[in-house]
């Protein structure tokens, strides 16, 4: 495992921001780190970066603790824009690139390449404050990725971007992953996580409530949606054992079930009532899982 968090706890005085968090992220993996606002994501990232020390537990990168000696192997995109507003794009990126161990000329070449990829080569000599929020985010992403880091930490990388730019950024991130980098990112957008991440983890109030591969997480969630469309009355089906929840519409119903068998049973019962025009078993979306896990506690 490339990045390992071993029973990491972080307390600020009485307040526990991160509680006994364990993660193991393989090299070249794209890892989704989900949580509501204030769940402890940023604190966890800051601990990974070495800006904060864990109260308990250990964080290692390839078996070694992360410190300023390894910082040039890490790329970091903070949640909020972190750029000098008055500095020109090129000057700024050269400065940040040099801080990550790049040489001036390499940095220059990388900046041009990245600006081309993001289709904004004309921003080279503009001040950051002149750019729109979305375009500033592109510059921020370049700052995080230009030095070809082995470990990339992206805190809400897609916020503030329009759909076209989200696609450009996604492909850039995938590209970096394909070159062997390990990427950890947080997002509120479950569809992005579903699309990009093989592994994920959901934290809530500092505690990890879900962890594993996307498929396992969905399987172990233990709920599927069965959607049936029929012109006949389906209310009877609610009493089938294994149905957890039902919601009715004019032309059918959606049942929440825990296993495939119940789903088949529902189909049989529906056919008894009359012809069925549509039947499907849907995997829960990450959105459903997130709301179920995190939202329950809110309620």
């Amino acid at each position, binding site marked *: 495992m490339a990045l390992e968090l071993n029973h990491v706890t972080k307390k600020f005085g009485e307040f526990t921001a991160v509680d006994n968090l364990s993660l193991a992220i393989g090299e070249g993996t794209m890892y989704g780190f989900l949580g509501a606002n204030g769940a402890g994501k940023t604190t966890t990232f800051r601990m990974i970066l070495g800006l904060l020390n864990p109260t308990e537990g250990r964080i290692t990168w390839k078996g070694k603790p992360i410190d300023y000696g390894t910082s040039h192997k890490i790329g970091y995109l903070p949640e909020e824009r972190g750029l000098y507003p008055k500095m020109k794009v090129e000057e700024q990126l050269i400065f940040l690139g*040099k801080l990550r161990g790049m040489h001036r000329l390499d940095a220059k070449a990388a900046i041009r390449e990245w600006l081309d990829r993001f289709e904004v080569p004309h921003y080279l000599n503009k001040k950051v404050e002149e750019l729109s929020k979305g375009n500033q985010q592109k510059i921020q992403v370049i700052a995080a990725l230009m030095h070809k880091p082995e470990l990339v930490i992206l805190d809400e990388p897609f916020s503030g971007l329009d759909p076209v730019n989200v696609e450009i950024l996604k492909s850039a991130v995938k590209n970096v992953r394909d070159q062997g980098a390990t990427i950890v990112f947080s997002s509120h957008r479950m569809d992005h996580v579903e699309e990009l991440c093989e592994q994920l983890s959901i934290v809530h109030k500092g505690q990890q409530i879900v962890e594993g591969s996307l498929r396992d997480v969905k399987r172990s969630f233990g709920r599927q949606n069965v959607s049936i469309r029929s012109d006949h009355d389906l209310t009877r089906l609610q009493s089938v054992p294994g149905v957890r929840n039902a919601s009715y519409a004019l032309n059918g119903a959606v049942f929440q079930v825990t296993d495939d068998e119940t789903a088949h049973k529902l189909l049989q019962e529906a056919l008894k009532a009359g012809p069925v025009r549509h039947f499907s078993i849907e995997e829960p979306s990450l959105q459903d899982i997130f709301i179920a896990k995190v939202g329950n506690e809110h309620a």
Partner: protein
Amino acid sequence: MRDFWIIFKQAFMSKAKSKTFLITTAVVIAGIFLLANITTIIEAFDDGEEKSKAIPVVTDNEAVVDRLAQQLAAMGEEAEFKVTGDLRGALEDQLKEGEIESFLILQVPDGHSIEAEYVSESSEMFGFPMMLQEALQSMQTEMRAEEMELAPEQAGALFEPVGFEQTTVSASGKTEEEMNQARILVYVLMFLIYFAVIMYSNMIATEVATEKSSRVMEILISSVSPVKHMFAKVLGIGTLGLVQMLLFGITGYLAIRSSSSVSDLSESFFSEMGLGDIPATTIIYAIVFFVLGYFLYAVLAALLGSLVSRTEDVASLITPLTLIIVVAFIIAATGLSTPDAAFVTYSSFVPFFAPLVMFLRVGLLDLPWWEPALAIGLMVLTIAVLGWFGARVYKGGVLMYGPSRSLKDLKKAMQLGKE
């Protein structure tokens, strides 16, 4: 170490290239040249409308007027008089219209007493009337002596000046004249130190707060440790300050030397400033106290800057710091006339006051070597302690966001820095 220099260079260059810095430096340099050549400039403007320098005199005794001119010449004052038949009223009108600067009414009613009235538009030329009075006084004394028919030796004996000499036995061991020279030099340097310390520590605090509020700080300290970042920043801006002061110093020197059209003035300026033979130690002490004073306040400013989240809050948090410098300056300014007063002596060892007050004392007095050494040692120690403490606060402070604008946040930041 590489990242240290990257930050150092960035702090130095971004400020050095900034418009504010370039304009301020240019304006001050231009000001220095202007000031050094002020007499040339004034003369250049004066040429067009030269007034007649001869002072009209209304008199009943023209011989006395000649004698007055001679007497003044003997006293080193060039004055030209012209006897006029105009009446007082007419002369006053001329005065009001600016045709003449002044006039004199001189009468010798009984041959041995002089009555005079000097009328000028304003009292700004107060030096000349005093000379005039002095000259007339001695003329009258001479006239009386002649009337009494005193022998020349007797008259000479009357006019013999007293043997008067001023010496001081204060700790300075410097004569009053030397003191005055030192005072001007010390005052100028003291003002520079005061000004620079305020300006550059403010610059640091604003820099740090800007980096924090733009959140670029988070990226910086994920590649460089906060402590390294802080000291690179402080050193970078400090170097900029030294360069700027050096520029001012060199231009000031060149400006005065090059204003050759008034070479005699610049000569007198140099000797008056004590610059003819600048005491090298004073300059060295000035640099030492500038550097140490800067560090002391810059480290504090950096840690205060790390506490605020918005640049607008810098001013309110830095005010106490500025007040300390102002107090130091007031003590030092008072000490200019009484450098051996007890409160000056004691406060010169307080690290926050030492850059100005101890500098004043070494500049004006002959101190035993251990006194400045002790003050410097105390300052270095304080800087070390503040640096250690500041680094702690800084480490936490830069990660702290929220409405922090009070010193209470110090503790919070310390806590966070430890964690």
